[in-house]
């Protein structure tokens, strides 16, 4: 997800904060995981993983990622695909605007004056 804020750039990153987190087991699929790793903003992911305290074993930069390291890949799988914020906020890093998350669903609706 990126910030839909009108003033923010095309790829304005979103930070995260959570008051309720859950973990939902998902079947490990190496090809899909590699595909997703290629599409996310690694810095945002690493920061989110740190905030949610699941960053152990996850490199801070994508360069340090070793796709052949199964343990590392499984930790990334867990943080990226299994850990969900149930209640919390996504935060636009450019404007500070918070997008609330409830029941695991982020509310990205912009108000009339934000369009």
């Amino acid at each position: 997800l990126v910030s839909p804020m009108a003033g923010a750039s095309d790829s304005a990153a979103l930070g995260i904060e959570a008051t309720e987190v859950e973990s939902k087991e998902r079947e490990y699929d190496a090809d899909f995981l590699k595909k997703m790793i290629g599409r996310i903003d690694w810095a945002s992911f690493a920061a989110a993983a740190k905030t949610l305290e699941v960053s152990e074993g996850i490199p801070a930069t994508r360069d340090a990622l070793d796709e052949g390291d199964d343990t590392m890949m499984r930790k990334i799988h867990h943080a990226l695909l299994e850990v969900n914020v149930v209640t919390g906020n996504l935060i636009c890093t450019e404007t500070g605007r918070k997008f609330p998350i409830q029941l695991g669903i982020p509310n990205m609706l912009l108000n009339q004056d934000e369009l």
Partner: protein
Amino acid sequence: RTPTSPPAQSSSMSRPEHLAPPEIFYSGDEAKKYATNSRMREIQTTLSERALQLLALPEQGSFLLDVGAGSGLSGECITESGHYWTGCDISKDMLEVAVEGGVEGDMVLNDMGQGLPFRPGSFDGCISISAIQWLCNAETSQANPYKRLGIFFTSLYRCLTRGGRAVLQWYPENPQQMELVTSTAMRCGFGGGLLVDYPHSTRAKKYFLVLYAGQREGGKPHAMPQALG
């Protein structure tokens, strides 16, 4: 002058978007009813499977966007066919029905007319079942359907990978609307066009916007698929 009696069935009765904005129409009990009505489920499932067929995905394990994912019906079809997905919808109640029912895809509450809030090149493809006609209404005095359609298609183009396809099933109200939506998609860079299944049957006729976001590197050029009937 004596008043005439109202028509037995006005066109508004059969077009939900004339009654209320989607987040109101699909709220509360209506959301639950929609999700459990077996005829509705059957129709939506058939449409979803056809849309997936039209997507002609090159491999398993694609990552798709489901626009107007609502109660998660179409998403379930995506999961059944071996792909991953993220869904978005404007109705909080419909999304909650989906999440409570347990769906594989992540759900996002948003208004597609405000843009799809995803990183460029996120998705291999997109499907949408019975959703985009809602973009053609002006829900507030400030909302401009032309602008919203443009924002939607521009952001959709951007969040697809190069060569990705979008298949959007919808119910055009009239030929003008058909032209407006199709030409807006083309203006935003998409190739492809409108495909009509069963064009000679009023009852069975179904409209799909089949769109291509550029060409895959080294991939086969796109060709419009065959319509049914």
